[in-house]
C-alpha cells in the first residue's frame, strides 16, 4: 500500500485489537526492521574505514566528513541535474575515489610511518577542512534529497517497511559484496590484502605497496561516498553530520574488530539495530547512548573486537 508523505521512523500499526504487550512487540519488531535496513549503510561506511585501517594502520578521522561530501554531491546531482540518488551514488563513489586518492597521495603518504598521534592529528585537520568547507559552500541548513521512491512504503501485516530504506539496504549490501569480490577474487584485491597482512612480505614478492595504499584509501573513500549518497533519501543531513558519522564509524569498526571486513559488516548491522531499539526503549535523543555503551563495553572487555584477531 502506498503512503503519502514521509513516514515517521517508528509508526504505530493500524491494527486496533492489540493489548499493551502486543503493541510493544510490534514496536520492537518495527525497530528491528528499520534498524536492520539502515544498517546496510552503516556496514558500507564501516567497511570503507576498516579497509583503510587494515591496509595502512591509519585511522581516517575524516571518514564521516567524506561521507557528507558524498551526500552533498548526491544532493547537487539531484537538485541541479535531476539525477536520482539511487543512480547518482555511482558518480559520488567515483568522485570520492578521486578525493581519497588525492588525500592519500598528498598527505597520508607522508606520515605513514609517523607516530599514531601525528596521524590522528593530520586526519583531524583534514576532517576540519572538509567539514567547514562544506559549511561555507552549502550552509548550515539541513538538506534532504527526494528520490522517486522516497514516499512509498509497504505494509507487511502490522509492520511497515519503507521502500527507500529497503532499496538503500539492498544497494549497500550489493556494494559490500562487490568489494569483497574485488578483494578476494582479483589480483589487485589480493595484493591489497597481502599488503594489509604483511607490508614487508608484500614488498618482497614485488607488490607496489605505495600504489596499493593509494588504491585502498581511495576505495575506502568511494565506499563512504556511495554510502553517503544512498542515505540522502532517508535522513536529512548537514555539514556537522560528518563528525557524528565518523564517531559512529569508529564505534562500529572497534566493535567489529579493527581491520576486519566481516567485523565491520556485522558491526554495522548490530550498531544500527541497537540504536534503533534504543530509540524504542529510551528517548530518541538517547539512541546514541546505546552504541557508545556498547563501544565502552567492547573496548574494556574485548578490545580486539568481535571479529578481530589481535588485541591493540
Amino acid at each position, binding site marked *: 500500500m502506498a503512503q503519502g508523505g514521509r513516514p515517521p521512523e517508528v509508526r504505530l500499526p493500524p491494527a486496533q485489537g492489540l493489548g499493551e504487550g502486543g503493541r510493544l512487540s510490534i514496536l520492537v519488531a518495527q525497530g528491528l526492521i528499520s534498524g536492520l535496513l539502515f544498517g546496510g549503510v552503516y556496514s558500507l561506511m564501516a567497511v570503507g574505514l576498516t579497509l583503510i585501517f587494515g591496509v595502512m594502520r591509519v585511522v581516517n578521522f575524516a571518514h564521516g566528513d567524506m561521507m557528507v561530501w558524498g551526500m552533498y554531491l548526491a544532493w547537487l546531482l539531484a537538485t541541479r541535474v535531476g539525477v536520482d540518488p539511487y543512480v547518482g551514488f555511482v558518480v559520488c563513489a567515483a568522485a570520492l575515489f578521486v578525493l581519497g586518492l588525492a588525500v592519500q597521495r598528498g598527505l597520508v603518504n607522508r606520515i605513514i610511518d609517523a607516530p599514531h598521534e601525528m596521524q590522528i592529528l593530520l586526519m583531524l*585537520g583534514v576532517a*576540519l577542512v572538509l567539514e567547514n568547507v562544506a559549511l561555507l559552500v552549502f550552509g548550515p541548513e539541513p538538506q534532504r534529497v527526494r528520490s522517486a521512491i522516497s514516499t512509498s512504503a509497504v505494509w507487511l501485516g502490522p509492520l511497515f517497511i519503507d521502500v527507500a530504506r529497503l532499496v538503500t539496504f539492498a544497494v549497500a549490501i550489493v556494494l559490500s559484496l562487490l568489494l569483497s569480490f574485488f578483494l578476494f577474487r582479483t589480483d589487485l584485491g589480493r595484493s591489497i590484502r597481502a599488503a594489509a597482512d604483511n607490508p614487508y612480505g608484500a614488498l618482497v614478492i614485488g607488490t607496489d605497496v605505495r600504489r596499493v595504499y593509494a588504491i585502498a584509501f581511495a576505495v575506502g573513500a568511494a565506499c563512504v561516498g556511495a554510502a553517503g549518497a544512498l542515505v540522502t533519501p532517508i535522513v536529512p543531513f548537514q555539514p556537522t553530520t560528518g563528525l557524528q558519522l565518523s564517531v559512529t564509524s569508529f564505534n562500529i569498526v572497534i566493535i567489529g574488530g579493527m581491520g576486519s571486513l566481516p567485523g565491520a559488516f556485522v558491526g554495522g548491522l548490530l550498531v544500527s539495530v541497537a540504536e534503533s531499539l534504543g530509540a524504542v526503549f529510551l528517548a530518541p535523543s538517547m539512541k546514541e547512548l546505546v552504541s557508545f555503551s556498547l563501544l565502552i563495553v567492547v573496548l574494556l572487555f574485548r578490545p580486539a573486537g568481535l571479529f578481530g584477531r589481535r588485541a591493540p
Partner: protein
Amino acid sequence: MRWAALAGVLILVALPAVLSSYLLSVFIFIFFYAFLGQAWNIVGGYAGQLSAGHAAFVGIGAYVSAILSQQVGLTPWLGMFVGGAVAAVLGAVIGYLGFRFGLRGFYFVLLTVAFAEVCRIAVGNLEVTGGAIGYYISFTGNPWQFQFQDNRAHYYITLTLMLLATGVAWLVERRRLGAYLAAIREDEEAAEALGVNAFRYKLTAMVISSFLTGVGGTFYAFYLLSLQPNSVFGIPLSVDIIIRPIVGGTGTLLGPILGSFILSPLAELSRHYLGQGGWAGAHLIAYGILLILVVLFIPQGAYPYLKSLVSGRSNG
C-alpha cells in the same frame, strides 16, 4: 629565563591599564584556552596520553558549580573545587578503565571521545541540567556569585588560572613524576621494565589534568552564563583544547601558552570578521590547515622549533 618569565608576568599584570575592552576580552580568551591547554598538556603532553574528550571535564565542572550555586546557594568560589573534584573522579574512572585495560593510541582517543559523548547525551536528557535547552544563570553582578561588572576581573581570574596550571605543570616537570611520565611517553615497555609503575603515573596525570580542567568549567559557566550540552561537552571544544598545546608544543611548559597566543587571536579575528558574512566555519578551516602544516613540517610544535632556531643561531 627566570627573569624573562617574571618580566612577562609583570607585563601581563600591568596590561589592562592600556587595553581597550575588546582587546581585554581577546586576552581573556587567550588566557582561558592557554589554561585549558596547559591542563590537558599534563596528561596529553607530558604523559603522552591523547585524551580527546577533555571538554567533558569542562562541562562537568561548569554544570556542577552552576547547579550548586543556583539550586543549593553554594558560592562558585567553593563550587569550583567541587566541580574540579567531580571532574577528577570521572577522570580517575576513565583513566582507570583506559589504562588498566591497556588502551593506547587510537583506542584511548576513542574511549575518551565516547566518554565525552555519553556525558553530552546524558546531560542533554537530564531534567536538573535543563536538558538540551541548556542551563541559564541569571546575571547579578555579585562577585560572591563569581560575576563581575568589570571585565578586568575576568582578565585577572583567567591570568591566575593560566599561571596556576603552568605552575602545576612546572612542578610535575621538575618532580620525579615528570621524569616517569617522560619515560612512559617515550617507551612504556622500557619504562615498566625499569620498574616505573606506568598505570599509577598515567592515572595521576589524568587526575591532575581533569581536576584543573573541571575548575576551569566554573569560569566557563559564570563568564558565559549559559550552558548547552552540545557546546560545553561537544567534540569541537575538545579540539579547541588540544589544538593549542599541539601547535605550541606538547610536553613543554610554554607550548600551550604560545599555542594560545598564536591561535586564540586568529580564532577571534576570523570569528569577528568572517563570522558575519556567512563565513561561519572559516576559522575552523584555518585550524585544519594549520594542524596539517604543523604535523607535516614542525611535528614537535612551535615552541621547541623556535627554541632550536634560537639556540642554533647562538651556537653557530
